[in-house]
């Protein structure tokens, strides 16, 4: 950010984070404001993570001056109509059970299938949730404690929350189609903060697909995103995010999934856009028989940087987790994968796996992999693997002998490389949507 912009920004809504003024401009239920204030207090005490902090060693955020950005102020101007651009996308993406649309970090549209609403499913903005279900927010969101290294951005996320939604699925209810959300950014120089709070009661089932979209923006813009996904006994969730922001955007997503007895969670992160994209994905297995599948794929070009930070935390015995993260990089793009399987004392009969595979397609690209294990129980099966390499020359040669150019052949192989991850998503509609996004990005 150059000096003139910096000067202009000091006159913006929040001159160097006048939080009191920011909070006074909000009209919202009291529990939300007091949670913000608590988060702000903690935020003010913490230093920004630098590359000296192990978790941030390979991702430099010192170039972003968060306090010079304009925080999006939460508004509650819900539009009955679906915005036109979103309607366009939805027309191509099959059935859905509900829709949430954000613009510049604020919720502008929420809709839910009437049949589901009648069955007791709740889909509403966080402000409404704060009014009607404050206790849910308190226990499921405000009491979440991230790791020390993530706390700075997490507390900022809560303090300046600009929008969010609650999805609550009552016991035994199964959503027939996914909830589809759109996080669109239009104004350059903004700092937005959105949160997805998903509560799955006993034996409830749902799929959520979240898309993050913008054009290229000509000023540094930052999107903070959080997701808290709670699965009670035997519940099931498929949580998918597709990040396709334009250049100029930095995206930080913190996702916490909790699975109780026999619950099954699947998270899937697709990273295609933004200059800098960081996903911190945690899965906690709290009940015996719980199962977590963590999937991700990313394709980086130009000077994009992707950072994936994961934790598979086994607190209960007899749980299973499996992680598969695959990335391909070209031009001068770079990526980091840092994963940890943590097995607590007493979490016997744990089955945990972690795999990270990277393809480097160009001379200037580079990848870092740090697959870690910390095992404190003895009756476990844990393994991890990481590879970094190029596409297979024999395969490339074969495809080229069938008439494809090198570029076409290479891209086709990358697509195949990703398909292993995609194939693990149960919902066909969601799979197709992601395939389309990847095709568009890699130019197949």
């Amino acid at each position: 950010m150059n000096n003139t912009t910096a000067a202009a920004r000091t006159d913006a809504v929040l001159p160097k984070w006048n939080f009191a003024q920011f909070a006074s401009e909000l009209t919202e239920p009291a529990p939300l404001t007091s949670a913000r204030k608590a988060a702000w207090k903690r935020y003010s005490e913490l230093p920004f993570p630098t590359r000296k902090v192990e978790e941030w060693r390979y991702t430099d955020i010192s170039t972003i001056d968060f306090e010079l950005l304009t925080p999006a102020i939460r508004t509650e101007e819900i539009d009955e109509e679906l915005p036109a651009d979103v309607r366009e996308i939805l027309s191509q993406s099959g059935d859905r059970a509900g829709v949430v649309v954000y613009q510049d970090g604020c919720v502008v549209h929420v809709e839910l299938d009437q049949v589901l609403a009648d069955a007791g499913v709740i889909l509403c903005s966080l402000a409404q949730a704060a009014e009607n279900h404050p206790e849910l927010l308190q226990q499921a969101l405000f009491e979440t404690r991230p790791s020390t290294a993530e706390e700075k951005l997490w507390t900022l996320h809560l303090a300046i929350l600009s929008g969010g939604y609650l999805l609550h699925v009552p016991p035994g209810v199964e959503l027939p189609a996914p909830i589809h959300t759109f996080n669109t950014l239009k104004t350059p120089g903004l700092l937005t903060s959105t949160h997805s709070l998903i509560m799955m009661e006993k034996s409830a089932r749902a799929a959520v697909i979240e898309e993050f979209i913008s054009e290229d923006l000509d000023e540094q813009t930052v999107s903070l995103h959080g997701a808290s996904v709670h699965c009670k006994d035997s519940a099931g969730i498929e949580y998918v995010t597709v990040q396709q922001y334009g250049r100029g955007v930095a995206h930080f997503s913190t996702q916490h999934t909790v699975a109780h007895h026999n619950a099954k969670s699947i998270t899937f992160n697709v990273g295609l856009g933004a200059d800098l994209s960081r996903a911190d994905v945690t899965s906690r297995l709290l009940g015996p028989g719980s199962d977590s599948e963590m999937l991700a794929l990313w394709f980086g070009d130009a000077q994009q940087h992707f950072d994936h930070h994961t934790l598979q935390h086994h607190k209960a015995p007899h749980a299973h987790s499996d992680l598969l993260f695959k990335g391909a990089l070209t031009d001068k793009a770079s990526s980091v994968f840092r994963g940890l399987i943590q097995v607590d004392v007493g979490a016997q009969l744990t089955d945990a796996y972690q795999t990270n595979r990277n393809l480097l397609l160009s001379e200037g690209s580079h990848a870092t992999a740090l697959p870690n294990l910390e095992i404190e129980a003895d009756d476990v099966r844990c393994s991890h693997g990481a590879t970094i390499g190029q596409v297979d020359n024999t395969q490339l040669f074969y495809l080229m002998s069938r008439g494809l150019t090198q570029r076409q052949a290479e891209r086709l192989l990358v697509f195949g490389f990703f398909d292993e991850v995609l194939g693990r998503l149960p919902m066909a509609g969601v799979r197709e949507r992601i395939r389309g996004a990847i095709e568009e990005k890699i130019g197949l």
Partner: protein
Amino acid sequence: MPQNETIKELGLDEYKYDFVTDDKPVFRAVPGLSEEIVRQISAHKEEPEWMLEFRLKAYEIYESKPMPEWGGDLSTLEATLDNIYFYLKPQDQMERSWDDVPQEIKDTFDKLGIPEAERKALAGVGAQYESEMVYHSLKEQWEEQGVIFDSIEDGLRNHPDLFKQYFATVIPQADNKFSALNSAVWSGGSFVYIPKGVKVEIPLQAYFRVNSERMGQFERTLIIVDEGADAHYVEGCTAPVYTTESFHSGVIEIIVKKGGNFRYTTIQNWSNNMYNLVTQRAMVHEDAKMEWLDGNLGSKLTMKYPSCYLVGEGAHGEILSIAYAGDGQHQDTGGKVVHAAPHTTSQITSKSISRGEGRASYRGLCKVYDGALDAKSNVECDALLLDETSRTDTYPYIEIDENTASIGHEATVSKVGDEQIFYLMSRGLDEAEAMAMIVRGFIEPVAKELPLEYAIELNRLIELEMEGSVG
């Protein structure tokens, strides 16, 4: 850390702590570290001026660097360092009597079947004349071919040019806090030079070294393997080392020149109150091959990551590592390979066993720099957990800046299967024997690379450590 120790205080301490009733004057510094002590060590060794300056600079760096916050728990180390002697003249260690050796260690020697003379040598209490005679002829043979195998002090004295050319080129003072500490107070260690094309077929063994002094707490080893030369160096003892020392920080520097071939084997079995923080690194040139064989059985905390810097085209590095973390021990070990030239290859194989409240961590680095075309590296870590309270960690760092690289890392963690134990017991073994057999099988890929007598001893040591682990 005590500062500005006056000469007077030094004098007092000299009497207070000097329990050796011998007419030879024995030098001993006061506990803790100061610039004065560094100067004394250098003066005592009658070193050239440049070495004194090197030590003082290192001391400055050591003081300015913070304690590492990663790896093992070093929180009590600072206090330990204030109380240890940074320099003891080797003689007084050697003049302890056999009676001072604790009974448990004597028993271990008995169980290992080590001959009386060797036992005394291993425990650091016996004279080494017996072995001197045996190996005297070997020494002559090496010398005829130009091989130098000296103590590090003799190396500096007798081969000053060669020494100065390579000393601290692989591990500079400022590399890390403990390499700086070692650079300031180093004492003891080996200086080895293998001339061009010479192949030394018998392993060079540190404790067979003629005129050898027992390894100090801050040993410093410098090994130069010239073009096309070939050698194997074995360091340390496989039997428990009798020591009252609580801190060990060595620096091992190795240069393998074009087409050279070198293997460094070390099996560490320090006593369980010891901090063992070692920096060991090899610079591997064109078409040369370096192998580290690293065994860590003892100590309270070991932090040791043998490294290969592959700086010449076609260089190959291999690290075979085995760690055994018994009750209360933390083995934070692993290996580093840095690929800085095209067509370089490396392999790391790590095996660890944790028992009781032991913790074994693998920490490693695989770095490929831009331009190191077609670098290939493979890392495999296997961990075995023997008890509910045991812990194992794996922390590999894989940093790749070159797209033609091909890198793989795999790790597995498991326990000894009930069905495996059951099968062996059905064949007539008792549970402890069955367990020991499985553990031996687990470490076999590393053990088979050891010279025979070391492999046998390693197996027996593991067996001893395993006693009482079942039932």
